[in-house]
């Protein structure tokens, strides 16, 4: 028997290492041997970034009325993580050992990551059959659909309305019912010159925030980044009009340029009363205003957005979170039922509104007497559903595509340059589109 050489030992160690690494990878390629759960105790593994979802689902599974007639006795294993990490870990787990969650909350800006290479199709349960009975009553499926197939159910519509300080509007004589953005900016420019007060904000921080701000207005104007087929439609007169509107607003001071609409500078602007209005989603009430300026309770109100003279909608929509069910898992059927009960029933939607402030995604619920009668203490007792109802009826459709992140990266800097006056809106959009086309060629 020959002596073992150093070289052969090292080689053997390398092979052993590769074998150890390959074993779980090969194991992950196999199908799960566990049988699907049809009834009984269902311990659902839930991944989310928001404590309010945890509270909502925990309350929901204890709600006898909501769970009546279910074949399952639900329990929850919660994993809390940052939105981007949820997606990254979920894909990594799917590759590694299949230990993915049963139910996952996906941020709207993370969803494009699963829109390529059939990832959504391989990971998530197709919800077509689940949502079909609801027809047009179910709002906002489009951002979470791939090739027309929905894979996630939106939690709260994220309807963008105009928040405004009624006391400051009274003081500075700004009419609350200004019809168009043009009129609104005119008053804003006056307020900025005379009192250093702005009537809106534009994000100038990271690319995501900059582009989201632009997209929000673009959707309201009737434009968008992509159509239902995933084709780019940014090269449009609406896009130019919106960017010119934003640029004009920033230059006149009507729109305040802030790095982060949820950051410390924005809180300072709110506290100092330098921000008298802002177009933001419904959840900004709790996450932005009540969190930063609780002392301004009763001074804020909401209304639908002023229109663009050229047309469009009276509201917009952006960020949100959709829940998706992971497919081919023992708990897939149970998780789908839990999601259906909490997200697609009247009781579930009202429970979500009460616990997390998530607006219903069923259009019919905006006429629900119980919700319509709800008064918002922070908004001076305003019956906000009157506004949300009108907004939900005119909500633009928002489509995403796999290359959404690339577009965001290349467009952010260009939009910022236009807002800062370093380039023209036309040149900015042109440069952004050129860079996008170069990068998506890959």
């Amino acid at each position, binding site marked *: *028997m*020959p*002596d*073992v050489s*150093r070289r052969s*030992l*090292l080689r053997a*160690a*390398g092979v*052993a*290492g*590769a074998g*150890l*690494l390959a074993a779980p990878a090969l194991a992950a390629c196999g199908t799960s041997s566990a049988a699907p759960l049809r009834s009984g105790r269902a311990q659902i593994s839930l991944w989310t970034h928001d404590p309010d979802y945890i509270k909502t689902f925990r309350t929901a599974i204890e709600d006898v009325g909501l769970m009546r007639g279910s074949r399952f006795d639900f329990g929850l294993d919660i994993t809390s993580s940052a939105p*981007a990490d949820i997606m*990254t870990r979920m*894909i*990594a787990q*799917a*590759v590694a050992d299949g230990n993915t969650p049963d139910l996952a909350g996906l941020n709207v800006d993370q969803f494009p*990551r*699963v829109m*390529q*290479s*059939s*990832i959504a199709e*391989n*990971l998530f349960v197709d919800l077509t059959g689940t949502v079909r009975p609801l027809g047009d009553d179910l709002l906002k499926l489009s951002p979470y659909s791939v090739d027309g197939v929905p894979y996630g159910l939106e939690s709260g519509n994220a309807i963008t309305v105009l928040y405004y300080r009624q006391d400051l509007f009274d003081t500075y004589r700004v009419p609350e019912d200004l019809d168009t953005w043009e009129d609104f900016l005119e008053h804003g420019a006056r307020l900025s010159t005379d009192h250093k007060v702005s009537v809106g904000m534009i994000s*100038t*921080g*990271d*690319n*995501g925030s*900059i582009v989201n701000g632009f997209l929000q207005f673009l959707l309201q104007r009737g434009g968008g980044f992509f159509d239902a087929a995933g084709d780019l439609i940014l090269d449009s007169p609406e896009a130019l009009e919106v960017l010119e509107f934003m640029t004009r607003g920033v230059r006149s001071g009507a729109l*305040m*340029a*802030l*790095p*982060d609409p949820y*950051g*410390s*500078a924005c809180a*300072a*602007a709110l506290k100092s009363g330098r921000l008298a209005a802002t177009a933001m989603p419904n959840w900004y009430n709790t996450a932005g205003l009540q969190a930063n300026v609780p002392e301004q309770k009763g001074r804020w109100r909401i209304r639908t957005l002023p229109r663009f003279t050229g047309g469009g909608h009276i509201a917009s929509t952006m960020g949100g979170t959709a829940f998706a069910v992971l497919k081919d898992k023992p708990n897939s059927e149970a998780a789908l039922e839990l999601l259906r009960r909490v997200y697609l029933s009247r009781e579930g939607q009202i429970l979500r509104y009460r616990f997390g402030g998530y607006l219903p995604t069923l259009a019919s619920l905006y006429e629900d007497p119980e919700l319509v009668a709800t008064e918002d203490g922070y908004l001076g007792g305003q019956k906000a559903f009157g506004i949300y109802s009108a907004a939900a009826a005119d909500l633009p459709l928002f489509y995403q595509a796999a290359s959404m*992140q*690339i577009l965001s*990266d290349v467009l*952010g*800097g*260009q939009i*910022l*340059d236009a807002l*800062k006056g370093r380039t023209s809106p036309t040149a900015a959009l042109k440069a952004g589109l050129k*860079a996008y086309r*170069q*990068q998506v060629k*890959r």
Partner: protein
Amino acid sequence: MTAPPPTRAPVLESLPARTPGKAAPPRTSWWMRRQRTLAPYLFISPFYLLYGLFLLVPILVGLYLSCTEWAGLGTPKWVGLRNYQDLLADHSFWTAVGNTGLYVVFTMAVVMPAALLIAQALNARGLRGRDLFRLAYFMPVVISPIVITLVFGLFFDNEFGLLNAVGHAVFGFGGIDWLGSPGWARVTVVILVLWRWTGYLTIFFLAGLQNVPKELYEAADIDGAGPVSRFRNVTLPCLRPVTAFVAVTVLVSSVQIFEEPYLLTQGGPGESTLSVAQFIFRAGFQRQQLGYAAAAGVLLFVAVFALGQLAMRVLGVGRDDR
């Protein structure tokens, strides 16, 4: 195929006959001899196993992935060297390379000398509150990155930032768009790097300074050397090993810079502060272009390795000058 081992004569038969009065050598079995041969390798094998598992295998997998197109799920599609070709034509990649180069040059040219000068000051005899200074300089390394982001974000904000407010109050200028202008955003990242790492490097230099023999300074004093001459002719030569170590580690880590631009500007405005490590992160974990990210990772690895080797040769790390 392995060739069969050559036939040998039986060992025991070839031994000379026993001499009376002398103790016979202990008889060793094949298994005992084998154990004796294997034992050292077994003792050191955990290192090689882990080295292979966590270093060699990932590198090889990374190399393979860099020649594929893969979104994370499904089978990677072999594309050969196309990812490398695309990288070389990618404007964003070159922006990231340029920014990273700027961070490296700044770290080597400003942060390191600043750390050395602070260490020299802290090493002065009779300095009161030395530990307090050391704490103050070391503190940035241990502060949570989230806190740093929040504080720096507000500190450098164009509208509500402390820096602009002070600038306006004291000098009367209108303020700088620290985070919104591409040029100033780079400066801001560089300031963050300076603030964060100078104190950390100071600790290394301070340790080195405390090992410089006092006799050398006394001899220099007798020769009439002034402070600058003492620093140039005594301190710097004695600190050469520490300087070389710091330079190599700083070079290697600053080529891989990620945290500072990611936290402060997310690589923006636009891509003006994007680093190569961020470019890789973005491709892999925001765009699901894992093959492309792996190709950029391989290039970064080659660059770090080459620069590290170059620095070690130039600075004479591991070379015995005696």
